[in-house]
């Protein structure tokens, strides 16, 4: 990140000292980069998933102050958090929408890695732990919405427990060991799993899943967090109905990441097959993907079979996810018939999706290769014109000030909404504030990188002279900064003479991207 290194106060020096001392820890192996310009978020979806995990950890820990994992009280405690505790509404909604965002980001992350073939080149362990981590993420989200113990949660718990029960031979034992007997046990144990066991498992898997190169893109992190807040403000999650054991529950559907499975369950086929074996098969195929994929190339265009299988999977997931949600609205038909999905229909569609997806994939590969060829031809005719937004220094400054003023306005509006008791408006505006900050930060780093476009000082013949000029430069001209200090990722070429900063013993991550802390020579 672009921090002015000239003005180092005591606190900053302390932080840099800590940063340097990390050289003695396990973190040496990790290479952090803070991009100084826009980079595609597809490359760091995993980091965004992890950010969601952190947000969920913080909000979840705060929710634990009020939540009571007791069968008859959990719903009421959630209602208390939602309706009475100041900012409880906010935390609950961030926690809920954050969980959805985390599952969604994890799925996107997986499919990006899948289609770009990143699981190759000795990344098999990363891929396999990632698939397990994704499964645990869904379990974590599932246990989370169960412990509210509304009618819907009760049904979800029932389904989970009885699916476990349906495993041949060991099922009833596993169910009793893991979940106990009865809903009182289920709520308490799902809670223990939700707040401790599964997160610990996830952290352990993350320690293995963590790649050595990490990207922390502040604007994208802020934009995603803001989107979660904003969604919470616009679509606040409801409480559902409190579960009453003597009142049979009405029609409910599970969360969106499980309706696909629910569609299969609704065919009323054997629940072990539909509810345990099908998802196990799906996860198993994903786990084995890097070992089944024998293509030597990475791009999805060069791996037609793998791409087609992936597209088939996505098509089936989309169709079953929608199908699981869909219940015919005609109330004159008995409930039973409305809920049942004809297995012949469902499985026929599943099978039909295979040739359709394969055809679609082949078509897309054909089109993409065609476009590639045309692009190459067009390139031969001359460089492609790309329109850019180039802001002058003056306009950048004015934009930054305008965004600051907007932030001030939004802060007043958010606080006013809170005072008026409009929690959802407050949460919505808070989301907007975070997104505005994302834009602000992007503009800031743009301006910072622009500031080094000021003509460079002329070349000096020896390194010794550079040293002297380096030190005198900031004194003579405060605005002008040496280009080396501001160099960012992808601009390594500028640092053609690494010896010009011999006094920097501290870690300067922006300077030399290919060197990590471990590469620094220590006495």
């Amino acid at each position: 990140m672009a921090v002015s290194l000239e003005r180092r106060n005591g606190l900053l020096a302390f932080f840099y000292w800590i940063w340097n001392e990390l050289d003695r820890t396990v973190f040496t192996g990790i290479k952090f980069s803070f991009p100084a310009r826009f980079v595609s978020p597809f490359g760091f979806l995993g980091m965004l998933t992890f950010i969601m995990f952190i947000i969920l950890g913080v909000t979840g820990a705060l929710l634990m102050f009020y939540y009571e994992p007791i069968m008859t009280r959990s719903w009421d405690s959630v209602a208390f958090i939602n309706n009475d505790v100041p900012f409880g509404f906010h935390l609950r909604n961030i926690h809920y929408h954050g969980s959805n965002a985390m599952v969604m980001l994890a799925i996107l992350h997986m499919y990006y890695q899948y289609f770009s073939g990143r699981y190759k080149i000795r990344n098999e362990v990363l891929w396999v732990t990632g698939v397990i981590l994704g499964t645990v993420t869904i379990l974590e989200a599932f246990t989370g919405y169960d412990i509210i113990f509304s009618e819907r949660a009760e049904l979800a718990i029932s389904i989970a427990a009885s699916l476990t029960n349906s495993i041949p031979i060991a099922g009833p034992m596993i169910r009793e060991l893991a979940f106990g007997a009865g809903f009182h046990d289920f709520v308490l144990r799902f809670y223990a799993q939700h707040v401790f066991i599964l997160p610990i498992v996830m952290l352990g898997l993350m320690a293995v899943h963590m790649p050595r190169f990490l990207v922390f893109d502040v604007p994208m992190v802020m934009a995603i967090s803001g989107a979660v807040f904003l969604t919470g403000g616009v679509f606040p999650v409801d409480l559902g109905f409190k579960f009453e054991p003597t009142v049979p529950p009405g029609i409910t559907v599970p969360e969106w990441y499980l309706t696909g499975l629910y569609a299969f369950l609704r065919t009323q086929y054997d629940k072990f097959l539909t509810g345990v074996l099908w998802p196990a098969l799906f996860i198993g195929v994903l786990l084995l993907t890097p070992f089944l994929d024998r293509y030597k190339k990475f791009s999805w265009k060069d791996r037609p079979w793998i791409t087609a299988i992936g597209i088939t999977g996505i098509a089936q997931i989309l169709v079953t996810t929608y199908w699981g949600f869909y219940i015919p609205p005609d109330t004159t038909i008995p409930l039973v018939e409305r809920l049942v999905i004809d297995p012949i229909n469902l499985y026929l569609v599943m099978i039909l999706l295979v040739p359709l997806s394969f055809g679609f994939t082949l078509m897309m590969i054909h089109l993409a290769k065609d476009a590639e060829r045309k692009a190459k031809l067009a390139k031969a005719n001359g460089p492609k014109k790309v329109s850019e937004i180039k802001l002058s220094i003056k306009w950048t400054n004015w934009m930054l000030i305008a965004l600051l003023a907007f932030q001030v306005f939004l802060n007043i509006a958010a606080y006013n909404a809170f005072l008026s008791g409009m929690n959802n408006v407050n949460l919505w505006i808070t989301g907007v504030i975070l997104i505005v900050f994302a834009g602000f930060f992007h503009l800031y780093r743009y301006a910072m990188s622009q500031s080094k476009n000021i003509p460079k000082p002329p070349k000096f013949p020896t390194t010794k002279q550079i040293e002297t000029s380096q030190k005198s430069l900031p004194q003579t001209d405060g605005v002008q900064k040496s280009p080396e200090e501001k160099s960012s990722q992808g601009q390594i070429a500028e640092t053609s003479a690494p010896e010009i900063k011999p006094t920097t013993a501290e870690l300067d991550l922006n300077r030399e991207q290919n060197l990590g802390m471990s590469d620094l020579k220590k006495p």
Partner: protein
Amino acid sequence: MSEQEKGPGGMSRRDFLKLLGAAGTSLAFAPFVPWGKFMPNPSSVTLTKVPVMLPDGTQANLHTFPVNHAEVITYPETADEVLNEEAFRKWQFIRLPEKFGGGRKDVSSFRAYSMICLHLWCLWKYWPEEGRMRGECPCHGSMYDVRTGTSFLGPASVQAPPSNTLAQLDFEADSDGFMFISPPTWGVNDNGVVGYGRFT
């Protein structure tokens, strides 16, 4: 290891030590195997003969309880009102309709089945209307024969025994017609297992 170190039995000293090491490790961790018993929740309730208490607080009497009617009863009831809310302790206490012999003035005209549907553990209930007279699960439409507790339609009916028949309670009645629940034995060959089933 080199050949010289092989003992008289043909086993090297290192292999022998490895065996001893494995035995020692196994013995050191053996006592923890029964600790797995920590995981299932032991029921603290002693199963005894108790009166059938209806939701209105009165004891069920076979002379007054209406024919073709069902109530929710709690068994085993505890002093803990939270645990009494437990769906696994909820039973449909049913007097059979006239055509199934519900008019008889003895315990044979009564049934009590666990309300936990054997399919996906929703709570089913008895519907006394003409043409229904069966247990129906609101979730996926499993239907239960009120005479036996066996599912005859819907997803629960296609499950292999014992998971197609509901756990049940047995009754006794005193001379005044007041009803009691006999101490049950939780097992698939006896009263059944709640949420798992019973062999008929």
